[in-house]
């Protein structure tokens, strides 16, 4: 087939350059590139001239200017005296945090619900169906408001709390728990975890090889757990427990305003984060569930029948036979759900979660008026996040692809 085409191309090139599809192709490509380059240049030039004509400040100098406003969740050292550049980092990390945790939750819920919907148990299947149909059809912004205001109204007020094991506490200011304070020497434990992960990989490879060769199975999961959790824990104990916990301080006496959890003590998870996280994960999970269901249904029923004919346990059939084949169908649409979740996290501003769009493309833009620079930076961030996610998922998809022997 392909040799056919090139043969023809060779023939025609002898006739005339204008009838040569190859030369013509190159000609049009060059024209296209030139037109695009001109358009980009015209756009940039025009924008700069207009900004100057209107006396609107431009350039990236504003990134060094003092921000002078507070933010209610910061993952780096940030104060009002920090710069707009620091606000960018704060917003970026907050976006990554809610998107990352959201993707994790949405995946877990989505896979469970997707499988539940296929369950032979009528009640379980119906619960899954109702969950999917209801949450998928309500606008996400409404769900975000619902979770935010529902949670705020349902939990104890600022001066009281509900506690679990005296460690996890909740009230209207969020979830409060002890904050880990790594002491000198904690690095070793972190290194041990990393080594554990590497070792676990090696063990897994080895076990697979051995099973292929001899048919003997090896408890990979338990071994990995031992390596990743057990080993670092032993090292932690040996090195004299180099981790301390800062408990949140709760005052029950004194002036009414000062009662309740004290700002800056313990670890506070703000309700704005929780509400956004709930809404994003539960909403995206409905789509993931449908993708998972479709993926599983795409695997021919003969596979299940063959497995039961061989006497393989139901749970093993799902885990070892159905899911790996279904994954090939699931991963591409799953990627776009992950991207959707990340982009949807920009609805954060509605409930005061300080994500990138809220603090940087919102507050900083408003204060500096430098719309062009700020929107460009923000778009760049979302583009980068999307591309990185896609690359990762494509790689993962490739490892899952059918290996033909």
């Amino acid at each position, binding site marked *: 087939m392909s040799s056919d085409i090139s043969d023809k191309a060779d023939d025609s090139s002898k006739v005339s350059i204008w009838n040569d599809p190859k030369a013509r192709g190159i000609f049009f490509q060059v024209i296209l590139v030139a037109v695009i380059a001109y358009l980009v240049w015209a756009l940039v030039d025009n*924008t700069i001239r207009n*900004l100057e004509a209107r006396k*609107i400040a431009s350039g990236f100098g504003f990134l060094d200017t003092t921000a002078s406003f507070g933010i209610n969740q910061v993952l780096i050292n940030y104060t009002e005296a920090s710069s707009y550049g620091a606000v960018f980092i704060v917003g970026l990390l907050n976006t990554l945090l809610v998107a990352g945790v959201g993707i994790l939750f949405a995946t877990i819920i989505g896979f469970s619900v997707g499988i539940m919907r296929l369950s032979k148990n009528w009640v379980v299947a119906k619960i899954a169906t109702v969950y999917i149909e209801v949450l998928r059809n309500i606008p996400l912004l409404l769900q975000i408001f619902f979770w935010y205001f529902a949670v705020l109204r349902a939990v104890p007020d600022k001066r009281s709390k509900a506690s679990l094991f005296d460690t996890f506490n909740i009230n209207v200011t969020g979830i409060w728990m002890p904050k880990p304070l790594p002491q000198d020497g904690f690095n070793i434990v972190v290194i041990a975890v990393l080594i554990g992960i590497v070792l676990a990989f090696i063990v897994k490879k080895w076990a697979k090889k051995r099973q292929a060769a001899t048919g003997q199975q090896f408890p990979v999961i338990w071994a990995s757990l031992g390596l990743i959790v057990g080993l670092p824990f032993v090292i932690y104990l040996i090195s004299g427990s180099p981790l301390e916990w800062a408990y949140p301080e709760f005052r029950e006496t004194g002036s009414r305003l000062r009662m309740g959890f004290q*700002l800056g003590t313990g670890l506070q998870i703000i309700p704005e984060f929780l509400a956004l996280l709930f809404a994003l994960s539960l909403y995206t999970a409905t789509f993931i569930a449908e993708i998972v269901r479709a993926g599983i249904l795409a695997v021919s029923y003969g596979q299940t029948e063959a497995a039961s004919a061989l006497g393989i346990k139901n749970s093993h059939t799902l885990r070892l036979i159905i899911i790996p084949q279904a994954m090939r169908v699931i991963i591409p649409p799953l990627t776009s759900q992950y991207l959707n979740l990340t982009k949807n996290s920009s609805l954060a501003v509605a409930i005061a979660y300080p994500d990138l769009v809220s*603090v940087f493309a919102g507050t900083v833009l*408003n204060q500096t008026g430098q719309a062009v620079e700020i929107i460009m930076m923000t778009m760049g961030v979302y583009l980068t996040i999307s591309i990185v996610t896609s690359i990762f998922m494509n790689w993962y998809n490739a490892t899952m692809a059918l290996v033909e022997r």
Partner: protein
Amino acid sequence: MKYKLLSVALGAAIGFTASAATAGTLDDVKKKGFVQCGVSQGLSGFSNPDAKGNWSGLDVDVCRAVAAAVFGDDKKVKYTPLSAKERFTALQSGEIDILSRNTTWTATRDTALGLNFAGVNYYDGQGFMVRKDLGVSSALELNGASVCTNTGTTTELNVADYFRENKMKYEVIAFEKADEVIQAYDAGRCDVFTTDASGLYAQRLKLQDASKHIVLPEIISKEPLGPVVRQGDDQWFNLVKWTVFAMVNAEEMGVTSANVDSKKAGSPADKRLLGVEGNFGKNLGVGNDWAYNIVKLVGNYAESFNRNVGPDTPLGIARGVNALWSKGGIQYAPPIR
């Protein structure tokens, strides 16, 4: 030609078009037949839509007055509700002709955003509201408080300054929309709700039980609120500026919507204001009866104030510093002559 076409098409995509950059807002407004006015998303007394979508308020009156000056018809206004953080971009990009939305005149906004403030129609300052049961009587007792407010406002900056200056800890929860701020405050997420004092009066009406809340005595900032236009269009800037001045001058001269017709035969100053003598309207690019139309259709500053935010309205705000300079306040307009 080719260049222009291309750049217009492209520029439009990001909102900085070549055509909008040129001055001539007044001509554009006359051509399209209405004034596009940026207002709040609903702030009682200042800019608020009723059930039928008719806007009213002190800030809305500025837009109506400009329409009255240009067209002799105060209804030729279209409104664009904007959140605090959207408002300047909307004006810069030419989406609106005037921004009249409780906007504070600050140095940055006046000099770096390509904007001009055309006057002050309400002198304000930032205040705090708290629940009575907190037992707080001064803002200096607010150490450790959670504070709800709006993003993209001077409020957000003042509160940060105030708490830092007084070495008090605080947590700020900043929403885009004013309604969410008041809801979160009402739900107990915050101890304190802070904004311009006028905003406190207006938003207080939305609380479940307003009697359980008090406004603290401290006013922590200066918030001169006024209409804003794009920089570099002096004709339009002059028109909006003198529209505000005309309303204040009318109050000072005792010209009201009720007596404006008889005042046409009044003192020389009355005659100049109402266009019987002089060419003041023509110099502004509109008819000489511009101020007559403003007072006739919208009223003078006192009428607008009393109708929208004054003692007989739900907001019940006293004139205070917004009284005329001759009556103990600081509202002062240069003379029309």
